């Protein structure tokens, strides 16, 4: 026998449950941010941002690690975006669904599931030792690029697929070639989605530790070339905390990292909205 539940009560109950789930998620997020900022912000000052670390990071600031983070992330994005968007265009516009595309997609999905420390190890063996690039920005950014590639492919593919078929038809009917259709019609419409993928990639690169420590090393000097070893903020945080050098400075670094990621996200979405509002 089924127990009768008044649909109105049922409705109220599940609304409360769903609200609770959402609430817990948001609470955890805010708790982490609040905690890190509370412990980290007191350390953060202009000097902390503009001075290089002294005594392994016990004193001084984190300037060189900020430079390292920015350099590594920018390089990784510059490498991964063309590769990822290119693959996505190929998969969506230039082939039909067949076993080759399924293998490619499966491969890239698997790539997304590989733990970052494996990427680190792979990067270490291939770029650092075999190709002789050493611990360097180049090794680090190539490794990071491979790591974020699946995300960029996936989101770009979805963004490109969601561009209405009618746009392509119209573009062709107005005498455009395939390449013109892809570059002038499809990609601009897919841009917000592609940008989302790239921003996710930026977030992952900035926060990545394991893959970077093996490939870019942990030098505290400001990198001067693609072949300089460099330390990122997350690696710096890891080493400071792990080796008990300075918990205060570790949290300071973490606070800067979190604020940076927040600012990047807010900025990117604002820009995107502005762009979208103009013509869509």
């Amino acid at each position, binding site marked *: 026998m089924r127990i009768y539940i008044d649909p109105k009560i049922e409705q109220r109950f599940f609304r409360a449950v769903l609200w609770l789930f959402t609430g817990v998620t948001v609470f955890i997020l805010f708790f982490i941010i609040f905690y890190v900022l509370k412990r980290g912000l007191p350390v953060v000052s202009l000097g902390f941002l503009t001075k290089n670390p002294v005594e392994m990071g016990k004193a001084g600031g984190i300037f060189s690690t900020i430079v390292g983070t920015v350099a590594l992330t920018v390089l990784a994005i510059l490498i991964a975006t063309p590769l990822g968007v290119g693959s996505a265009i190929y998969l969506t516009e230039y082939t*039909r669904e067949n076993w080759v595309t399924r293998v490619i997609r499966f491969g890239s999905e698997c790539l997304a599931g590989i733990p970052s420390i494996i990427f680190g190890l792979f990067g270490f063996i291939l770029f650092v030792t075999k190709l002789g690039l050493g611990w360097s920005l180049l090794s680090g950014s190539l490794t990071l690029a491979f790591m974020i590639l699946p995300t960029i492919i996936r989101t770009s593919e979805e963004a490109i697929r969601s561009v*209405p078929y*009618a*746009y*392509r*038809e*119209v*573009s*062709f*009917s*107005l*005498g*455009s*070639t395939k390449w*013109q259709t892809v570059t*002038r*019609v499809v990609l*601009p*419409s897919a841009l917000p989605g592609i940008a989302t993928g790239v921003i996710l990639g930026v977030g992952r690169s900035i926060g990545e530790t394991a893959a970077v420590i093996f490939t870019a090393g942990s030098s505290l000097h400001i990198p001067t070339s693609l072949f300089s070893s460099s330390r990122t903020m997350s690696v710096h945080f890891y080493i400071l905390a792990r080796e008990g050098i300075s918990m205060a400075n570790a949290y300071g670094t973490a606070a800067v990292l979190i604020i940076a990621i927040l600012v990047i996200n807010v900025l990117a979405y604002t820009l995107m909205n502005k762009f979208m509002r*103009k*013509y*869509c």
Partner: protein
Amino acid sequence: MDKTVIRAMSFSHYFGPVPALKNINLEIFQNEIFGIIGPAGSGKSTFLRALNRLNDLIPGSRPEGTLEICGQDVYAPGTSVAELRRRMGMVFATPVPLPRSIFENIVFGARMAGEKNRGRLTELAADCLKKTALWEEVRNRLDVSALKLSGGQQQRLCLARILALRPEFIMLDEPTSGLDPISTMKIEETLRKLQAEYTIILVTNNTKQAARVADRTAFFLNGALIEVDLTEKIFSAPSDKRTNDYISGKFG
């Protein structure tokens, strides 16, 4: 006296094993408005899309027989498809403005064909907007998104966008199916004005529209051409019973 500009000879079109068009024999004359009527799935749109080879986009699409435009086989190897499509300007059932400004929508085709001169593009846009009676409505907001226009305005924009290709033909695939009567009237008026310069092929699921504007009308059914004749003849004394049944609303 009437010059044949489009000639289909035993033309069929397959999607996979299924023919969407069966053995069509048809002639279209210069500067006429040629109406095509028929129920859904009768092959009217497939015929239009065969003319500008938009069917090529569909996997498994295969033409058979001959389809000639001004004596040239549309499917001959080495035909420039982009150029063909510019000659055969096409308006779709739902207006699809591209997500860019009104101006950029109109000059899209010209830009893709390599025109960069700002002055010529501006002139082209104004000229085409005037021909579709849209100029007065949008002249002050050419840089506004085309998606902000009303449905009727969007469809006239699509027509203007086609004119900017400097085509020889205008093909319309149920262009007023989503429009109100007044917008429909404006489009029909525009078509009559354009007839002097272009050959117009109008596919419509509204038989009355064909009766109003077409010089000659063809009736398609299940991929076959049943009958083609002067519009008055089709609507007053069709020679095939199925045509009569369709236009008198017995099916379709």
